[in-house]
């Protein structure tokens, strides 16, 4: 009996029909498995994410440019609306700020004198890296952004991202060679140890926890904490991940026991962010 010649089709045919039958199901299972693995911070999934994003960073840098134009156009249109109201608001704000300026100058002089008297050694100021936001997702499922600086520029996970107006935007959670992902304070997975400073001098520790809305929630406030709207929220430095005293936001609404905070950082948009590198070993009094 002669053997039938082994042709390419004969080998490939069963594989192909099997693939056609099960391909969709297997892709569904793969997506589900990736979701579970990614949720458990699997190293391979994380590396894949960072690698793919690194490859596509140049493309995103190009697409972010027209986005910046759209963004400034939208901003211009929004500003056009109610110009007189904004002028009045700015005048009022300017008046208040001028009073604050006089106070700040006096306090700075006093502070300088006290520092000289007590021979105060200031902590080293952090090194900062400026980067451009190349993607920003603000939907109901995630709140994060990619920035145009990565490990090759000295960015590492754990660094603090500050907005242009000097408020905490988020924390770097992953860094590739040319990009880094910043998890915004509003994201579901963001938990930041903060202190709420009341106008009456009281302060309470808590955790600022995002829920993919514009206003994150304060959790684990001490029992009987007296918090009111307008109170300042700054990082507490507890846990040693973030430095203390970075401005985060203001308490905007209190309904029952739910305290919500509006972040000061203008988190979305083509804004540039400043990534701060704190070297905790060199800062006296901070336990890493």
């Amino acid at each position, binding site marked *: 009996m002669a053997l039938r010649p082994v042709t390419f089709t004969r080998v490939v045919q069963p594989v192909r029909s099997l693939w056609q039958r099960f391909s969709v199901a297997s892709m569904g299972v793969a997506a589900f498995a990736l979701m579970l693995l990614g949720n458990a911070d699997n190293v391979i999934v994380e590396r894949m994410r960072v690698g793919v*994003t690194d490859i596509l960073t140049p493309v995103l840098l190009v697409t972010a440019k027209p986005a910046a134009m759209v963004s400034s156009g939208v901003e211009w249109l929004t500003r056009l609306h109610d110009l007189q109201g904004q002028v009045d608001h700015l005048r009022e704000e300017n008046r208040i700020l001028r009073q604050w300026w006089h106070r700040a100058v006096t306090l700075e002089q006093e502070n300088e004198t006290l520092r000289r008297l007590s021979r105060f050694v200031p902590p080293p100021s952090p090194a900062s890296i400026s980067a451009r936001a190349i993607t920003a997702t603000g939907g109901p499922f995630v709140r994060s952004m990619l920035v145009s600086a990565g490990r090759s520029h000295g960015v590492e996970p754990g660094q603090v991202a500050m907005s242009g107006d000097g408020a905490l935007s988020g924390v770097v959670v992953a860094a590739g060679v040319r990009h880094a992902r910043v998890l915004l304070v509003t994201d579901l997975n963001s938990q930041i140890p903060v202190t709420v400073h009341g106008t009456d001098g009281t302060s309470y520790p808590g955790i600022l926890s995002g829920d993919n809305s514009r206003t994150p929630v304060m959790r684990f406030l001490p029992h009987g904490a007296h918090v009111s709207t307008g109170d300042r929220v700054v990082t507490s430095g507890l846990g040693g991940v973030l430095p203390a005293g970075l401005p985060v936001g203001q308490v905007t609404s209190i309904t029952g026991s739910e305290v919500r905070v509006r972040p000061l950082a203008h988190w979305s948009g083509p804004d540039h962010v400043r990534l701060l590198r704190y070297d905790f070993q060199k800062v006296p009094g901070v336990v890493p």
Partner: protein
Amino acid sequence: MRLFLLALQLDQAARATVPTVTVGLLILPGLLPLGAPWLSETMPHFAMIAVFYWTLYRPDLLPPAAVFLIGLLFDILAGHPTGLAALTLLAVHVVVQNQRQAFLLRSFPIVWGGFALIAAAAFLGMWLMTCLLALRLVMAPAAVLQFGATVLCFPVLAWGLVRVHRQVIR
């Protein structure tokens, strides 16, 4: 003559990739840093509309593997849980493919209504999965808002896709 045939084949192959390319390009609006928070909060899920359209009218030109890979890319770049958009878009693809006969040759409002139903299920699925993965309740109004924006944008984008379909793919 042979060169002409080759050019013709290349031309046809290029035209056949158009559905995949449009779906791929339509993930971009959801990623761009567009300034105003309300803009990125209500950004419609354009890729979902494109997957619905092409699966309905040219399923032969949009393989499920392409849908899966584009979804995966969207997840990776947007920072979603990896696989969330991939699973959702694939589910939309499978459901539409199974229900094609119910939609084909029907009037536009019925197709629109069908899309709204499928999109509602898809958004509900995404919201549930996000909640389950985080083991916390995510704000639902934002998801409802995005769903509404997606359904409202359907006629406009579908009109654009019909143009592309007629002019480019033929």
